[in-house]
Every structure is written in structure tokens, then in C-alpha cells.
């Protein structure tokens, strides 16, 4: 790479140097940039990844670089008990609740419905890809990240993980606790990584286990938005009561 811009960003309290092809990429990272450089080699989007992105019809530009940075950043963070996780992160009664779903399933719609039901109680930590940090005491902290989805939802402070809801569409509104083993299988692909290196895959597995064991996990099917949002809010309220 020629003529790179090097900057430093902090994700969940850990600083990483970033080498950017386009200086404009800093626009989307601006809330996370810090002054002093970190140690270690900068993280960047490789030529191969950029070529694949272009081959898929996406433009090679600053915004593309910003989107593609998510994966190498997550891989660098994995070595520090942190990762980027694909889920919306809501804050409710001092805890973070992750809503995970495939594209188009209705994650954002569900979040919007929850926020309308409980406008003073629910806020968004990150709308799409928060950064998780597994602490030594077993808690997992959920932090904002610059990758906050189409809606650009962000703003709430970091919070300790309360639980993960795996959402899918179905014929009824239903929520049930998820076995730890099933949660692990669902959560593992949500830890951002390239699947290129065995060491990173293994760290993703370690991180997945810490995430699943840090909070409760549920499977939820949503048939009607209003019904499932009410049901989910009820579940979160019950969990919050247990915490008191």
C-alpha cells in the first residue's frame, strides 16, 4: 500500500493503529480516534480483501474501507479478549442485551419496537456490531463501536452483558431459554473473523464461550412485531428483577 494515513483508535479501551488507504475513512471512525499511537503493527484492509469487495460489485472507496476494517480490527481485538460481535446491543436497567439475527430477519424492527414500548428505559449501545470485552471475573462488557448499522444507532454507555437473544421469524411469538450448547453454536459465527487462521478461529471459540457463559441466552421467534416486542420486554423485565 502506498500513501497510507496512520491513525489510532480505541475499541473497548484497547488502542489499535490503523493504516488507511483513504484519509476520509477517519470520518466514520472519528468518535473512536485517540491521540497517542498504540504499540504494534497497524491493522489494515489487505489488497486481496479489497479486490474481493470490488469483484462483488462494491465500490473501493473510503466507506468501503471503513466497512471492511471491521474484520481485521476484530481479529486484532481477539488476542486481547475482545471482539466485534454481530448483534444489536440495547441497554436496559444497567445491562446490555444483544439481539442477534440474520440479515433481513427484523433485528432493527424489533429494536425499534422495543424502544417505542419503553422509550425511557431502553437505549442503544450499538445498532449492529458492538465490541465485547471478556473480563477476568467472567463478566463481558458491551461497548459501542463505529459500525452501528444503517440506522446509525448509538449513544448509550457500555454495560455488562445481561444476555443474548437469537431472533428468527416464525409462525408464532415465542421465547424460550436456550441451552448453553445451542447458544454456543448460534453465537460462534457472530464473532467477526476471516476464518483464515486457525489461531484466530480458536480464539473466537474461546471468546464465544465467555460470551455465552456471561449471561442468559434465549431463542425467540417473531410472528408479529408488537407481540414479540411485548414478550421480549417482559422477559428482560423479569431478568432485571432477578438482578435486584
Amino acid at each position, binding site marked *: 500500500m502506498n500513501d497510507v494515513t496512520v491513525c489510532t483508535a480505541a475499541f473497548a479501551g484497547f488502542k489499535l493503529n490503523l493504516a488507511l488507504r483513504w484519509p476520509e475513512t477517519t470520518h466514520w471512525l472519528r468518535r473512536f480516534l485517540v491521540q497517542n499511537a498504540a504499540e504494534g503493527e497497524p491493522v489494515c484492509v489487505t489488497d486481496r480483501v479489497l479486490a474481493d469487495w470490488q469483484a462483488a460489485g462494491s465500490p473501493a472507496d473510503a466507506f468501503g474501507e471503513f466497512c471492511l476494517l471491521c474484520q481485521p480490527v476484530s481479529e486484532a481485538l481477539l488476542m486481547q479478549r475482545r471482539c466485534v460481535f454481530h448483534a444489536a446491543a440495547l441497554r436496559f436497567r444497567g445491562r446490555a442485551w444483544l439481539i442477534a439475527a440474520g440479515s433481513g430477519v427484523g433485528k432493527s424492527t424489533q429494536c425499534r419496537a422495543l424502544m417505542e414500548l419503553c422509550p425511557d428505559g431502553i437505549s442503544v449501545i450499538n445498532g449492529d456490531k458492538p465490541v465485547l470485552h471478556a473480563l477476568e471475573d467472567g463478566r463481558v462488557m458491551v461497548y459501542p463501536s463505529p459500525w452501528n448499522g444503517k440506522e446509525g444507532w448509538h449513544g448509550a454507555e457500555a454495560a455488562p452483558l445481561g444476555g443474548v437473544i437469537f431472533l428468527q421469524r416464525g409462525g408464532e411469538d415465542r421465547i424460550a431459554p436456550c441451552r448453553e450448547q445451542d447458544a454456543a*453454536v448460534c453465537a460462534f459465527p457472530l464473532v467477526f473473523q476471516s*476464518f483464515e487462521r486457525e489461531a484466530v478461529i480458536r480464539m473466537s*471459540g474461546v471468546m*464465544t464461550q465467555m460470551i455465552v457463559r456471561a449471561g442468559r441466552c434465549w431463542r425467540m421467534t417473531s410472528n408479529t412485531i408488537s407481540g414479540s416486542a411485548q414478550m421480549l420486554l417482559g422477559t428482560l423485565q423479569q431478568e432485571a428483577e432477578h438482578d435486584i
Partner: protein
Amino acid sequence: MTYRIRPGIVRLKICDVDLLVATRAVWEQCPRVRPIPRLWSACWAIMEQEGRTDRDVVRTFMTLLRKPEEEIRTTFDPIFQTLCAEGYLVPAEDES
């Protein structure tokens, strides 16, 4: 047929569930993430060692369980066939 592990597959245990995870290099050949039963994981652990094949798995279990090869094969051949059909194992002569 003798089977070997396809290079590029990682065996993981997360929350007591065993998984086979394909590295990007072999995404075209097999599913990316596959939970497997404990017995399959035990077979894989034997075959992960360099140069080992399904024959080593059969020999190991013949010794452990003190049963003849035919009986061990009845249990294990379907496992090898399924893993080969899904792309995780390859015939020992062909690792492409």
C-alpha cells in the same frame, strides 16, 4: 476406501459442544461450522495426528473395546462415510 482429514479443518470445543470449523481456504468443499457428536470428535482427534487415517481409528477402538474389526467398522464406517460426503474427510490418495 481409506480416509484422511482434509487440511484446513479445525476441531473446537465450545461450551461442551464439539464443532468442525472450515477455514476460508476450504469453504467450497464443506460446511463452515458443523457440530459433531462426541464419538465423531474422538475419531477426529485420532485422525488429526499426522499421517493417521480411519484405519488408525478402527485399530484404536478395537484395542479399547476388545472387539473385532468387523464390529468396530459397523459403528464407524457410517461416520467416515458421512464426513467424507460432507467434505471433511478425503480419500487418502486425494487431498485436493
